[in-house]
């Protein structure tokens, strides 16, 4: 990803970061080699994947699992490994 860096005159005093959780603007999805694909028909909405995803990349919509956030998902495969009904497949990422 490309980003323009601020010079010292434009940075907040003390180098403070003024927005909590702004790592959200940094896309770790580019790290992926494998991509999780969810079969929502198979999913029983147990939410285990939400608990165990280290990158906060399980999307929840109306209280239900709704696939992955590919901007941040690193493709670690944890969700696919732990899903009790094997609703998630890891497939090779196409770049």
């Amino acid at each position: 990803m490309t980003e323009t860096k601020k010079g010292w005159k434009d940075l907040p005093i003390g180098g403070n970061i003024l927005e909590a959780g702004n790592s959200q603007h940094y896309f770790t999805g580019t790290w992926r080699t494998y991509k999780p694909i969810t079969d929502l028909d198979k999913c029983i909405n147990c939410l285990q994947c939400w608990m165990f995803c280290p990158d906060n990349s399980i999307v929840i919509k109306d209280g239900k699992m709704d696939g992955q956030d590919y901007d941040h998902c690193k493709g670690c495969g944890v969700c696919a490994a732990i899903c009790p009904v094997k609703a998630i497949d890891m497939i090779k990422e196409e770049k």
Partner: protein
Amino acid sequence: MALTLKDLINKQIPLNGGHRMCGGCPVPVIVKQVLMSTDHPKIIGNATGCLEVATTIYPYTAWNHPWIHNAFENVAATVSGIEAAHNALSRIGEVPEHNKDAKFIAFAGDGGTYDIGLQSLSGALERGHNMLYVCYDNEGYMNTGIQRSSATPIGANTTTTPIGSESYGKTQSRKDLLSIVAAHHIPYAASTSPHNWMDAMKKSKKAIETQGPTFLLYFAPCIPGWKIPSDVWKKLSETAVKTCFWPLIEFEDGKWSLTGESKLIAEGKMPKIPVEEFLKSQGRFKHLFTDKNKHVIEIIQKDVDKSWNYYKGLAGY
């Protein structure tokens, strides 16, 4: 508040995506379990280590709580100072109402806890600050490239205990930190593991809600450090507990008990499996599965049994 996934998914997550922890690292899950176990406002301190470095790469931070990093060796002192300052400001009416009930939580790796941060931790426990200290134990100095710590187990191959014709890896046993912490007679201390999220979150909630200093020792498999694939830590943590390599222990008001799978094993309701099952899937122990080194597996089994029998005894079995 009941700890159910249906409730938890509606709450503010403490650590956003976009952090730079390794893919599949359980440490962000540990942070989530600890901080989501109660609704209190929280102020977090972080010792130097993977969690600190990789969640705050400038100009980004993954944290949704007030957060401070000071140094490698002093997170307990830093957080205890914040707690003391909060109390002083409260007394003169300078703490806003919504922050009155704030909780103070320190996170550190095993290097920052068992080794360089031990005296800072001991001091904070002795002074009796109202804070929780969480050690995520990945059994080595991982952020600087996998050096051994006093939490590294016997037989592990690290960059400072390298294997070779004369070496099978680390020769010393793990330091028993939980007993050292409990010897400060604090009100609450426990060991837990992220695979058993209910055990972990119940203990986190108790630790946060208990008045006085409290301590959690968290199992934390490390992908590059243990040389494991990125998707196995949940299963591996479960195996660590089922082999009694990592018992789930609680120390509350001076009494020891076992929880989760460890309780079932102690009561004979679940089999205790050989430590080999835990060792065999990890690259850091691969060299032990040779004719030359297989006696080390027996040494490790004896070490595990000794510690397990000790804690089982403390828990009254």
